[in-house]
């Protein structure tokens, strides 16, 4: 194996992992903090992808600039969804377990609703566009520019979010809520608002991932489920509620995926699940789980 191949696999893995990490951080916030296992996570990815597609092809807005438009819109959708639905569910549920199963069911409903609305709005057709689709040479290994840019944004968004969590008041409130919602609310944190913000931010990250994905993957209204599954796997691998865990888990899964594709593509998905399940048996609480 020569150096270029190693670079191919290593950087290729990072490129794949970057998107996975972004996908997973969003879900990690929603599940790790707000305790909503959002099966409709992929639908927010789809919304982000379609929004970017439409803004780019219809209005010629640079796909990367659409992040600024997609972000606030999806945040509002997510925030309101939590305020109107999940807050009520949380208050009316007798136990955290009951809340989890009820919210799981509710997100299935949301999945159906969003997907159907997308079908009505955009039609069932597959859509794709080409943006920054040229090769960039990194030490002999060539990568498409749109993937490198995606990775850059994924890391940037991840870091910005981490700083937000560590440095800001709201970030601290979120971390407190993740630890123990009851205590956090005793300490004067407006827990419902914090959880709604978490849910909204989680949706935004899904939307961002959708924007970045749309630059290189054909999109359609039914695309979401696969990404939801990837995101769930990553957060489980990383350890529930651990944002760094999700970030690292994303990259690990990306590299595993790339390595197995290199070795035997037809078994890549099988190998992928096998390794994941093996890791889970060795570390039943995820890589950074406690």
């Amino acid at each position, binding site marked *: 194996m020569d150096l270029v191949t190693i670079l191919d696999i290593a950087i290729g893995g990072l490129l794949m992992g970057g998107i996975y990490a972004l996908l997973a951080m969003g879900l990690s916030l929603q599940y790790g903090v707000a305790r909503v296992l959002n099966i409709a996570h992929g639908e927010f990815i789809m919304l982000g992808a379609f929004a970017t597609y439409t803004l780019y092809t219809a209005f010629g807005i640079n796909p990367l600039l659409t992040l600024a438009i997609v972000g606030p819109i999806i945040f509002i959708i997510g925030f309101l969804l939590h305020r109107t639905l999940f807050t009520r569910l949380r208050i009316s549920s007798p136990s955290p377990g009951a809340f989890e199963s009820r919210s799981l069911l509710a997100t299935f409903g949301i999945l159906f609703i969003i997907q159907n609305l997308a079908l009505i709005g955009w039609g069932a057709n597959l859509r794709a566009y080409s943006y920054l689709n040229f090769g960039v040479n990194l030490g002999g290994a060539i990568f498409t520019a749109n993937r490198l840019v995606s990775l850059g944004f994924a890391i940037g968004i991840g870091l910005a979010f981490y700083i937000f969590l560590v440095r800001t008041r709201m970030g601290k409130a979120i971390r407190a809520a993740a630890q123990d919602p009851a205590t956090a609310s005793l300490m004067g944190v407006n827990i419902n608002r914090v959880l709604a913000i978490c849910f909204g931010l989680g949706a935004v990250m899904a939307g961002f991932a959708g924007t970045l994905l749309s630059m290189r993957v054909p999109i359609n209204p039914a695309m979401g489920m696969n990404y939801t599954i990837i995101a769930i796997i990553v957060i489980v691998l990383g350890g529930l509620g651990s944002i760094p865990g999700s970030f690292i888990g994303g990259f690990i899964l990306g590299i595993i995926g790339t390595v197995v*594709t290199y070795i035997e593509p*037809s078994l890549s998905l099988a190998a992928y699940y096998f390794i994941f399940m093996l890791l889970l048996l060795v570390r039943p609480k995820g890589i950074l789980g406690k």
Partner: protein
Amino acid sequence: MTKKLLFGLITITLVALVAVPLCSSSCVPAPAPAKDSIVIGASRPLSGMNAMIGDAAFGPIMTMWEEEVNAAGGIYVADYGKKLPIEYLIYDDATDVGTMVRLTEKLILEDKVDILFSSCGTAFISAQAPIANKYGYVLLTAEGGATIMRDALYGLPYVFISLPFSDHYQLPVFADMLAAKGAKTAYIVSIADLHGVEYSGVAAIEFARVGIDLIASVSVPETQEDFSIIIKDAKAANPDVFCVFGYPPQVLPCTAESMALGFNPKCFIAGPGANFGFYQFTFIEALGPNCVDGVLCFAAANRATSPEFAELYDDLEAIVSPAMLDWWGHPYYAPLVQIWQEAIEETGTLDQDILRDYIATHHFDTILGDTYFEMSGEGGGGLLVKETHPGEIGQWQNGVVEIVGGGPWSNTVITADFIYPKPPWPTP
């Protein structure tokens, strides 16, 4: 109080949602029909992954036919002594085979539709064919076709397959074209499903026949997204011919990566996917209308094939976006409705057995020209004969899919010469 009211309201709604259709469908006996329309039933993927195929392929043909027939007052059916308009009864199978099977049986047993239209996707048709056959409903299949289905036709007298597929007669034609140009090596990427396996398998046989070496045949799972490693591997192998036997989610990323990584084999074939308008539209913004020139696809006809095809595509373009035009499937879906119409008008009945025998034994005059099915033995089903095919292989040239390959029979219309090697990918 409001809570109580709401609670009651929801209960009533839930009960009503369940009870009303139950009653309307089973409690009230259907009145003896005074026939005033031909009811055509179909279980189609209106949601889920296959919706993107169904919506673009047979869907618009169905819509156009309904408008055309009903504008003319309907189809004359001698049994009823009058013209009957057509009426669709379409259910959503949500891209689930189990649901499709059940809804097909509902259409047949409960709705007692006059005609059954095809479901969408090879696996779906494979499951639908035995069901339609069991109840004696003629099934002219649309989006799908495979060798396993042809093999099953011997026991399925009511089933007629229209769409051409791998060895019938796409890949043999393709292999001969390559041999004529002196291609020596090939590299295949295929999706791990029955379509990918069939095409890669048949291609291996056909390539061997004409002396093309198969360097590699790589199969990928349906969720594979990153094709860079495979394209890099292919580039290193430097084959003359590169084949992507997958769907748009594989075909488009493979094309994009090939462009970006500078992989430009002498021949690049991809499908199904490259035969659709959106293949070009994906790159048109960045690279101009000639963005995918040189890429080959499975395609039968274009506007230059005949005035009828020009009209068909113009009509289609009036109701769907040009990105949805399909140069492979539409030429075969459009004749389906023509065959139905002719069979009903000529036999003057909606009786499935009579219609089946008529379709099995007659030649039809459709936009394909002389159109007929080859029957699989005595009690078998039909396969649209290869001599009906107007073409097998297309190539993007100057932003248009030209027909560059077809069988040596009279219906074939080659619209342009096969360009080999393909021109380099355009640069932005």
